[in-house]
């Protein structure tokens, strides 16, 4: 396969995640869409690593996975707190910082 095919798949996956963030209002689904986008970028990095014939891109994927794990842990704790305070998972509900 030409390496661009992998870039194309990851571009499509990224845009599906992006569209998901825009059309959904459930915070948990929004988080899943962020995971989709992170995974798409990981795929690009791994494909680029193969294109250049080095392992640096794969090391970046490793770091992105670590950061995604940390982000999910903190983010889901925030979501649980939000739900217990507001009683909803609607992303439009928390508006205390709105001017």
């Amino acid at each position, binding site marked *: 396969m030409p390496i661009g095919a992998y*870039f194309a*798949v990851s571009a499509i996956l990224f845009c599906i995640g992006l569209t*998901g963030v825009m059309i*959904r209002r459930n915070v948990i689904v929004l988080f*899943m869409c962020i995971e989709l986008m992170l995974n798409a970028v990981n795929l690009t990095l791994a494909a680029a690593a193969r294109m250049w014939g080095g392992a640096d891109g794969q090391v970046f994927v490793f770091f992105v996975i670590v950061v995604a794990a940390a982000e999910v*842990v903190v983010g889901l704790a925030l979501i649980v707190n939000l*739900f217990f305070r*507001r009683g909803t*998972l609607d992303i439009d509900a928390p508006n205390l910082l709105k001017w």
Partner: protein
Amino acid sequence: MELVLATAHALLAQGTDNLTTAPGETVASSGATAEAIVFWVAAVIGVGSAVAVILMRNIVHAALMLVMNLVAIAMLYLALQSSFLAIIQILVYAGAIVVLFLFVIMLLGVSRDDLLFETHRWHRVAAGVGGVAVAGLLVFGVAGEHLGAASRCGGQADPAVVAESTVTPCRGLDDALGANEQGSVGIIAERLFTRWTFAFEISALLLVVATIGALVLGRRHDPDASATGPEVV
């Protein structure tokens, strides 16, 4: 799904084994065919399940579709000769992150999705159009120039085509993997513990901070919080 994964790995291993033992026209093309099969299966499953993630009304189903998407991406990692990443993808994403998602969904008891698409129809249409436009831009602008015959990886491309093409050729990981006897794990470890050691240590710090942050956020300290929501035990 595991069966697919195992078959994919076996096919790829067969392809690469043949490539390393007896490089020749027919053998190289059999490896390329195996890669193409794995690529198309994984790409279709991946894109289909990603669409399902954003369209499923029940968020438990969405989480399960996310697992399928992650497994498909692991298959693409295998096709990209990155078997270590494929294993890490399954272990960390499918094994830990999605389980955390499902755990929170069950804890909150919100699997029945009663909100939840963007309220204004016009916004949804605009989001869809915008997503397709960005996808088109990325595919034609970024991936487009690497879609030609000169960008085939690892000696699959015709040298004459590569020589007259202006795009960066795909070198493939065969040389790097052949030079390191530990294979995929070896080449990553070599870079991770030499050039990127500092980043590695910072990521350890990040994980500690995230753990402490989750502990602090998980504590109940607000005395009148029970007035607005159910009490956690």
